[in-house]
């Protein structure tokens, strides 16, 4: 569990990081909090020829209002900052991030790991990836060709595979629209473990009716999985347990999760229904 040899470099600015990535070629990787990359290197599952350490780049740690009602998060913001978010203005629309942060790994991981790092890693059960997919986040990346904004719906391509080019660095993740009625629920056998199944939902409600909804599942596919079938059940339905259970059942019907040490495919389907219902209940009860 010692990594293969690699070159270590430190970047002082985003442009510097991109220049170095460009110079070092496809086999180089960025190092931020290192909470996923370093264990994978220790197992020699990944063998970057070089690491460009971006942890020291200033001004990339922030949670700030974006374009009026939105939220932008600097790529190097530790998970722990999200968990400790206190600004009432931000919490009004984005308390789901704060509530979901407690599910992110363990305390040391939340302290060292970064928001942008988790998005770049692209684990399909990661809380931030699920919420990015749920809330139509925009991933801002800078590469040798300049800056581009990638919608979350185009960003996640598969297990640990994203739309990022080898010379690109995420600098910011934007959540354009507030989501006062959103929630994430997950189940794992131990605190801090990867979710066996996680569900992230958001509801748009009016007069006891659900105008629209969005449902995203983690742990059941190789990307954060949007479940339109469950969303359709909710559209126009009365807000309440009946509709939430129906949405859960619908979600369970359409997913085709893998079996592994943690549980069978059938078990994950059961959990999908439960997690969707619980997340909807939390979302409906949360008025900001």
């Amino acid at each position: 569990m010692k990594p293969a040899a690699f070159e270590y470099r430190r970047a002082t600015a985003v442009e510097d990081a991109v220049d170095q990535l460009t110079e070092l070629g496809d086999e180089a990787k960025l190092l931020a909090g290192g909470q996923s990359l370093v264990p994978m290197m220790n197992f020699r599952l990944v063998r970057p020829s070089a690491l460009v350490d971006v942890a020291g780049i200033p001004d990339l740690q922030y949670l700030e209002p974006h374009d009026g009602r939105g939220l932008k998060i600097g790529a190097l913001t530790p998970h722990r900052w999200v968990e400790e978010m206190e600004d009432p203005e931000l919490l009004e629309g984005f308390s789901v991030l704060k509530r979901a942060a407690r599910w992110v790994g363990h305390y040391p991981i939340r302290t060292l790991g970064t928001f942008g790092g988790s998005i770049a890693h692209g684990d399909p059960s990661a809380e931030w990836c699920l919420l990015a997919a749920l809330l139509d986040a925009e991933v801002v990346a800078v590469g040798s060709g300049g800056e581009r904004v990638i919608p979350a719906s185009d960003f996640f391509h598969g297990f640990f595979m994203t739309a990022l080019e080898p010379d690109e660095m995420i600098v910011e993740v934007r959540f354009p629209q507030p989501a006062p009625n959103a929630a994430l629920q997950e189940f794992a056998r131990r605190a801090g473990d990867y979710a066996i199944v996680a569900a992230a939902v958001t509801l748009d409600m009016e007069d006891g009716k659900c105008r629209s909804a969005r449902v995203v599942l983690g742990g059941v596919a190789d990307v954060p999985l949007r479940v339109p079938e469950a969303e359709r059940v909710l559209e126009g339905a009365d807000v309440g347990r009946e509709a939430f259970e129906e949405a859960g059942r619908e979600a369970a019907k359409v997913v085709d999760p893998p079996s592994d040490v943690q549980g069978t495919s059938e078990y994950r389907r059961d959990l999908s229904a439960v997690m969707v219902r619980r997340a909807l209940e939390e979302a409906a009860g949360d008025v900001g």
Partner: protein
Amino acid sequence: MSAVGRRMGRLEDRRLLRGLGHFVDDVNRVGQLWMRVFRSPHAHARITSVQTDEALALPGVEAVLTGEDIAWARPIPVRTRTKHQLDNFLQPVLARDRVRYVGEPIAVVLAEDPYLAEDAVELIRVEYEELPVVLDARSAIEADDSRSLDGFESEAATLSMGYGDVEEAFRSAAHVVEIEVKIGRHSGVPLETRGLVADYDAGSDHLTIWGATKVPHFNRRVLSQMLGMPLNRISMKKSDAGGGFGVRGEFYPEDFLVPYLARETGRPVKWIEDRAENLVAANHSREQVHRISAAFDEEHRLLGLHDEVWQDNGAYIRTHGVIVPDLTLAMLPGPYRVPAYEGVAHVALTNKTPCGTYRGPGRYESTFAREHLLDVAAARLGIDRLELRRINLLETSELPHTRPLSTLGTDVVLDAGDYEGLLDKALDRSGFDGWEKEARELRAEGRLVGTGVGYFLEKSGTGPYEEAIVEVDPTGSVRVITGGASLGQGIETVLAQIAADQLSVPPEEIEVVHTETDLLPDGVGSWASRSTVVGGSAVMLAAKATAEKALRVATTMLEAATEDLRLESARVRVDGSPDKSVSLGEIAAACEPHSGLAEGEESGLGARRTFSVDHMTYPYGVHLAQVEVDPETGGVEIRRYFVAYEVGRAVNPTLVEGQLVGGAAQGLGGALLEEFRYDDSGQPLAATFIDYMEPTAAEVPRVETLICEDAPSPDNPLGLKGAGEGGTVGCGAAVVSAVEDALGMPGSIKALPVSPSKIRALLRESDRAGSTAAEAASFSS
């Protein structure tokens, strides 16, 4: 106040909590090489070639060793006495023709640093011819799959023991209950992985080794034989250890390779196991299937017990031989009156990591099987589960109780005890009636809450002997040297407490030394909850002899009669003459040669003593649990947990509680979380701490404890019984008992660990059965 019985913090913590401990990885020798093991990626394969040229060519690589290079080396011997012929099943140091589990050592590299060593291992080219794998103990034996194991019989040994007319018991029984249960494969997994450093001095032909734990003296003997070196040319040095649990410290292939390569290369060699290696290389344990049945008379008295066990021992027989199945069978009848008993255990070889002992070996397994059987029997017979146990527990008047069984080379004689008394105390102190009432009320609200019980008999204090030296130097400093080993269990504190009372010196001022073969060349080690019981008794004898010598020498120094002298606050004083006294240090100085004050005495103040014991001592206890099952996720939350334990006499109640709570954490891990699983090709599926799920502080409930000192052991001077394993032994039984109570489905849980996935499957099944029944009912109406 007596030091024995006092609650005090661990003396070890004075260094450990300040970061001043010395673990094996803290040992670095000038010019050392790092060893890295090349391990088999296949569960079963023929090795057709091993190419090491590329690895050797890597700059910084000093040597590569393969099985062919040490073809002369004998396989690793069995440590424990056994009548079974196991020679054919022992593990070679390095595999040559064939590998039998993923992780089996094939070659090793020595390099200038651990990174290079790992690089070099990747350059070793081995070609394999893959072979069919055997992964299920029972079907392997039933199919007699010996061909696929290439000469290895699938059944390495068959153990049987028992007494009485079991056939007649079952024939005449009013009720017979049979169940089949499985205990999952799990193990100790200490947080500090294994490691070893060896330094060879060619000038004096002497090997010095750091990192040996548990049985350093035994491992030294094995090494002496395997290397052809005299015993006294090998020194084991002490280090701190981050947990042992039966797993760490046994003689593994690396325990030969590191010293051997130090001698061969003339350079110090260091090896630190990594976690990925640890999970496939260090001993696994537990995996057993039990088909167990009980015969009862009309009054629900046990007439007989029968158990057939299939033990999945992995690919080889390691140092423990067949101890685990042996203990399983010998301890199976537990604390109950069992007039007739027959146990048979099949020890199967499979293509998995080999097994050894793990905290509570044989008892965790057999306690679960037996207690679960009693729960199922109580449900079938319509009797309260506690009442069924009370009817069958041995009474105090029946003890000592000799069972015509033997294990670990000694007869099973259950010594002092009050089994029912302990149950009463536990129920009372825990408020178990309240737990049950609360569970009933919550169930009435639709929640799945239940309570469970697991009564167990433990064994501890395995002989045959232990050694101890007590020394007082002329400054008055007291040192205790034990043949036991410190694995983090607090033995240094406990032995200091025992010596303190004899010498009238505060335990805080006594240094306890272990695992130093130069200071004490013989010892039996720390396993089987024996260090306090047997090691402590040896320390007591040595300290007592030292105190007696001090008094003898003081008679000359103080010109007083022995009967007028007493040892108090580290001084020998003369009754009635408050200003006449000498300190232990002054007496020690007087014991130096030519002082003229200790004629006819050997020089030095101190003594070496051996404590020998024929029989083990049998502690006992009960685990109580209250759990809640989430019907939607299948998750189990332990709401309350209680362990009551009879320890004879608690030298340090705080440390006994620590043992019980820590033990419970591990037992609960095996009940709910931990399992070494394999895929169909024999690839381990639990190769990291993500998949091998040890419970963390978030999962371990608050464990309440009750230490009982009602039945001191008659077999040692302090009345001690061992405390190391009782916290673990009852967990599987208590948790399953509570989960089934919560579900209202007695006998439904057939295997440990109880995973959420399995509970959901049970509930789905019962939903289906329920709706089918409902449909049937609606059709018929």
